[in-house]
């Protein structure tokens, strides 16, 4: 009964989405306010219906209803509750329902909180959102129905891929999808602007919070995925340039570019056509990512779909939306009036540089990700494009951008003075140079590029701090005056500084762990010791233990530094009885200055085990940096200026604010 309710709700949602797609658009063409007004309740109803379907599916998972094929294939009654819940989106069908749920949530958000948008803009935006909803609901209902029944119902399910039974991976897909799908808002706004043939600074002000929220979710989603790969896959690496990772990284890169170009549009009324194009590209890359992961063209950790019908369907969706959007762009973009002249050395110029590099780097990742697929489909030759490709292309392309990041916020709009900026960044430059010299002196025989990389990270952080210090007139005014200025800086200034500093932290983490990680693979018998990075590990042997839905071999290591014991490490190997597969759980000790990382390998002859130990210096900074970027985005999101609606009403709203004070 619950499953049928969910199935029915999905079909109703499709009907509502068709109404939401057609009537408001027709109404805005005819200038009929009643037809346009249909968009708001339609978007809200669509969200409620998809939410009902989602809850139905979740209920089936939580109650282990194996009469539903999807639950039978991806769950078991012994599974802990958290993974019963995350099992809903740990498979193809359920994850598509989550995708549409988030899409409908964003649509309902615009419907509910977008009452001060120009009416035809809101109608067109919701109409485009409706169209995306139609496409994906149709996809779910025709090719990926999660509510298919089984008869007779089996007694027990087949279980859930054990590597996915992990807290970080339980919440990774919702964040990632919120990011992917969140960019649909920017897309819908762009298409709506093209339909209207009109776009202004208010448009950018409307798009920016949605884009920012999507970008924050994507940042956290990518970081969670990387963190999971680090401790779960047992290789101690944090990024593999795997196509599935690239699928989420490409929209992140172009979404980052979009955030910055929308800033130019909001403040200076320039770069309109480019911003529209970037909004289309960013969501297109989200669709490409969905296609790569969901169609099964890649076989990788995440790719569980094997049905070609699905791939063709998503390819069709992509052709319609990307092709249609670009055609509309080619037709209507010349109507948009360009404004805002600026010199090459200016804030706008810096943001154009940011966009140029990010989009080029994104294109390089795109080529590396899709070239093997293209080659295979035309020549049947099978190749893999691994990390070296991306190290040769992506890394040199983004280096100039990272160097330039601290300069940007110091440059004035329209025409900047590079010499004055250089003076203000003098302290940051001295700190970065000092970091390079110190690291070079203490690293001994490490790679010579490493100190420069650390210096780059320090430059980013010090540069971000300099901007705040300059604005607060640190050491230029009295301490009280500086403090007063500091606490009254707009939140978006803190947001920018935090986000840029977060990039610096991640850079330091990546450089340090890449350059100085140490690795030791040995065969150990109980009682033997191995040493790594000044730590001594004594192997105590392996014992058996039973978990909720697995059996495990638990190894014990006592870790000493000098003569004192500092911790115990327990890497394990788990055999999942229902799923019939095994996982390796690394043991990680967060030591000062890095992670001590131990993995238990296979049993060898005469009681020995193969054991792998790593020391990953400063590796946690990579994810801490991502969290700092997220916080920076959050501060900007709550900046007062972004909360004000369309500028026509901005004056009134500010007036009310003033009255309230």
């Amino acid at each position, binding site marked *: 009964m619950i499953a049928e309710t969910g199935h029915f709700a999905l079909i109703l949602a499709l009907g509502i989405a068709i109404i939401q797609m057609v009537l408001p658009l027709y109404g805005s063409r005819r200038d009929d306010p009643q037809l346009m007004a249909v968009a708001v309740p339609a978007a809200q109803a669509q969200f409620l219906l998809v939410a009902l379907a989602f809850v139905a599916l979740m209920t089936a998972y939580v109650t282990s209803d194996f009469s539903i094929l999807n639950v039978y294939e991806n769950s078991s009654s012994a599974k802990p509750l958290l993974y019963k819940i995350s099992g809903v989106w740990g498979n193809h069908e359920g994850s598509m329902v989550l995708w549409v749920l988030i899409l409908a949530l964003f649509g309902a958000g615009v419907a509910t909180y977008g009452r001060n948008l120009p009416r035809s803009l809101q109608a067109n935006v919701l109409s485009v959102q409706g169209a995306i909803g139609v496409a994906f609901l149709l996809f779910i209902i025709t090719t990926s129905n999660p509510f298919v029944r089984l008869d007779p119902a089996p007694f027990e399910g087949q279980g859930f*891929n054990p590597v996915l039974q992990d807290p970080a991976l339980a919440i990774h897909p919702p964040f990632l999808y919120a990011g992917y799908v969140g960019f649909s808002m920017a897309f819908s706004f762009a298409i709506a602007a093209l339909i209207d043939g009109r776009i202004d600074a208010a448009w950018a002000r409307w798009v920016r919070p949605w884009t920012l929220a999507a970008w924050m979710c994507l940042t956290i989603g990518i970081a969670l995925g990387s963190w999971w790969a680090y401790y779960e896959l047992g290789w101690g690496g944090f990024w593999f340039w795997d196509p599935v990772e690239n699928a989420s990284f490409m929209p992140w890169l172009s979404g980052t570019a979009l955030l910055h170009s929308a800033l130019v549009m909001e403040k200076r009324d320039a770069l309109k056509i480019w911003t529209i194009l970037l909004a289309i590209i960013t969501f297109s890359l989200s669709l490409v990512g969905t296609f790569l992961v969901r169609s099964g063209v890649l076989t990788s950790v995440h790719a569980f779909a094997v049905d070609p019908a699905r791939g063709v369907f998503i390819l069709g969706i992509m052709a319609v939306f990307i092709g249609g959007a670009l055609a509309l762009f080619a037709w209507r973009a010349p109507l948009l009036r360009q404004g805002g002249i600026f*010199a090459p050395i200016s804030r706008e110029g810096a943001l154009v540089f940011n966009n140029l590099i990010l989009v080029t780097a994104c294109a390089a990742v795109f080529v590396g990700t899709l070239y093997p697929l293209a080659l295979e489909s035309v020549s049947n030759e099978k190749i893999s494009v691994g990390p070296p490709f991306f190290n040769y292309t992506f890394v040199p392309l983004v280096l100039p951008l990272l160097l330039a990041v601290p300069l940007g916020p110091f440059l004035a709009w329209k025409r900047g003075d590079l010499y004055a900026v250089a003076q203000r960044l003098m302290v940051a430059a001295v700190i970065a140079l000092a970091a390079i010299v110190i690291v070079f002196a203490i690293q001994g025989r490490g790679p010579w590029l490493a100190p420069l990389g650390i210096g780059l990270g320090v430059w980013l952080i010090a540069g971000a701090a300099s901007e705040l210090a300059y604005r607060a007139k640190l050491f230029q005014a009295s301490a009280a005056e500086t403090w007063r200025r500091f606490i009254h800086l707009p939140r978006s200034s803190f947001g920018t500084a935090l986000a840029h500093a977060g990039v610096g932290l991640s850079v330091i983490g990546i450089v340090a762990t890449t350059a100085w990680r140490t690795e030791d693979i040995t065969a150990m018998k109980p009682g033997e010791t191995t040493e790594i990075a000044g730590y001594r590990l004594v192997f105590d042997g392996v014992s058996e233990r039973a978990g909720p839905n697995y059996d495990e071999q638990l190894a014990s290591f006592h870790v000493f530094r000098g003569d004192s014991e500092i911790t115990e490490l327990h890497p394990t*190997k788990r055999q999942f009885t229902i*799923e*019939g*597969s095994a996982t*390796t759980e690394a043991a990680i000790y967060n030591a000062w200055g890095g992670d001590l990382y131990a993995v238990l390998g*296979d049993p*060898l002859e005469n009681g020995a085990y193969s054991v*792998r130990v790593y020391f990953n210096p400063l590796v946690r900074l990579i994810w801490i940096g991502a969290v700092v970027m997220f916080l920076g985005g959050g501060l900007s999101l709550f900046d007062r200026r972004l909360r004000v609606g369309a500028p026509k009403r901005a004056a009134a709203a500010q007036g009310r604010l003033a009255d309230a004070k």
Partner: protein
Amino acid sequence: MTRKQRRSVLIGGCMAVLAVAVGLVLFALSDSIVFFYSPSEVMAKELAPGQRFRLGGLVEDGSVERNRGTTVKFVITDKAKDLPVTYTGVLPDLFREGQGVVAEGMLGPDGVFQADKVLAKHDENYMPPEVAAKLKEQGLWEGPEQVSRETEPSKVN
């Protein structure tokens, strides 16, 4: 600066960055891609020693030897030709005899494939798609689909 000059600076800058990017991509593609071969293809091709490639197939039953510390020897087969492989390190969780595997490395002078990376995936029935394709070509495919369909209850709806 006139409008025209500003525009030429902008276009020139874009062109320069794009040119650098295209150069880097072409260089990297010529230098860092890795081809995928089955044992039969390795035998058929005259591969230059030291050329990196990925070798895919099944781990031959009864071929895994672990005698010298953490170095493992095994044989990868595509049911037509076999190739011996050595690898030092911890094998992935699902590395098993009779299962699909992909090893990356190069051929040694003794004709043994020296792997520095071994990939086996997280599914009991996983087979690298390339291996599945090869087995299908040779008519040896006994895929998991057929097996599971027999044991699965019938679908309704």
